[in-house]
């Protein structure tokens, strides 16, 4: 029979105490259905795994054999329920609400500020307004954090300025910029500019493609910006990039305004 040890133990057989989960860096489980389904499936798997092993170990004539197989069967039924939950989540994707984009943007900046490397300064031009968009706040937070991280990575080691700005444009102006159906009278544009080395114009068309990255091998998966565009498109908006070699990069996020108060 095999044996086991915790990878961080060095010859010690003392169990390590349970650590409190901080979720500081990895993918955060969705607090809504997706996250619940994930945790529930893990628990179901634990139950069915143990029950399956018990059923295998019990002699054929054991009165508990049938009982353990019933546990496995009950888990199967529960699994079909989690599949249905997930299917309904896929239909709705996320729970959208009217959300003030200014609040989410400020929250993203507060979140990113402590981890800005030395030499990179932040220049914010965010109006004290309430501009509502119809979105899921966590998805917006993810978009903004991805863009801040992307800008910071482009200036890493050299320093520079990250500028964040917000403006509202009329639909006629937006129509000439984004190639998408116009669904609102007004659009809010959130811009993230960096003073990094920029991206060669020949690569501009690839910026939002999955797995495309200009970072050195192992420094990025090339998924961040494709996720940004996927989320923004899902909100009937568009993500645009303007860049030139040695001229920095500007990412503009266009989202239809749900309601605006000045």
């Amino acid at each position, binding site marked *: *029979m*095999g*044996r*086991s*040890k*915790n*990878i*961080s133990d060095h010859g010690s057989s003392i169990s390590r105490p*349970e*650590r409190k*989960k*901080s*979720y*500081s*860096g*990895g*993918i*955060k*489980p*969705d607090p809504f*259905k*997706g*996250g*619940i*389904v*994930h*945790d*529930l*499936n*893990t*628990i*179901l*798997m*634990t139950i*069915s*795994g*143990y029950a*399956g*092993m018990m059923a295998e170990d019990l002699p054929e004539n054991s009165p508990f054999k049938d009982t353990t197989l019933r546990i496995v069967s009950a*888990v199967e039924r529960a*699994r079909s329920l*989690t*599949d249905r939950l*997930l299917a309904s*989540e*896929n239909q709705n*994707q996320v729970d959208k609400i009217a959300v003030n984009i200014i609040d989410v943007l400020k929250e993203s900046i507060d979140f990113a500020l402590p981890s800005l490397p030395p030499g990179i300064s932040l220049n914010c031009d965010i109006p004290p307004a309430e501009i509502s968009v119809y979105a899921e706040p966590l*998805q917006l937070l*993810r978009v903004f954090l991805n863009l801040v991280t992307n800008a910071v990575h482009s200036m890493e080691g050299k320093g520079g300025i990250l500028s964040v700005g917000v403006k509202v444009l009329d639909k006629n102006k937006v129509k000439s910029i984004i190639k998408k159906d116009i669904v609102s009278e007004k659009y809010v544009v959130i811009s993230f500019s960096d003073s990094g080395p920029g991206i060669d114009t020949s690569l501009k068309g690839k910026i939002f493609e999955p*797995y495309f990255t200009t970072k050195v091998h*192992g420094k990025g*998966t090339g*998924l961040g910006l494709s*996720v940004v565009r*996927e*989320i923004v498109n*899902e909100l009937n908006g568009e993500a645009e990039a303007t860049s030139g070699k040695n001229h920095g990069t500007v990412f503009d996020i266009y989202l239809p305004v749900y309601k605006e108060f000045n």
Partner: protein
Amino acid sequence: MSVILIIEDDREFREMLKTALIKNDYNVLEADNGKEALIHFKPGVTDLVITDLIMPEEDGLKVLIKIREMKNSIKIIAISGGGKAGPGNYLDLAKALGADAVFSKPFSVNDLLLKIEDLLKLEHSD
């Protein structure tokens, strides 16, 4: 005897997998998050890695890429609870990023054991 590293933050689930693997004569190393796994990963010792994809500290996709960089020939199985933490299917991404097999929880432990056996045979014939 082959050595399998389990990276999984759910202690109960990890214990269950460990029990199944030990019963099938594998030696097991375990880590409760990706960051810890990467710090202590020993390419020369580990034959196969089973990693969850949604974890604290360091997500499973990054772990997958980094472990593959440390030992290109290693066999990697990615598992996930099926819930979505954002757009895109993480198991599909894991496969695209080089996982040799993917399993969506809850799966049959026997299916996992058969896949491990297949992958280790392949590794030893490489």
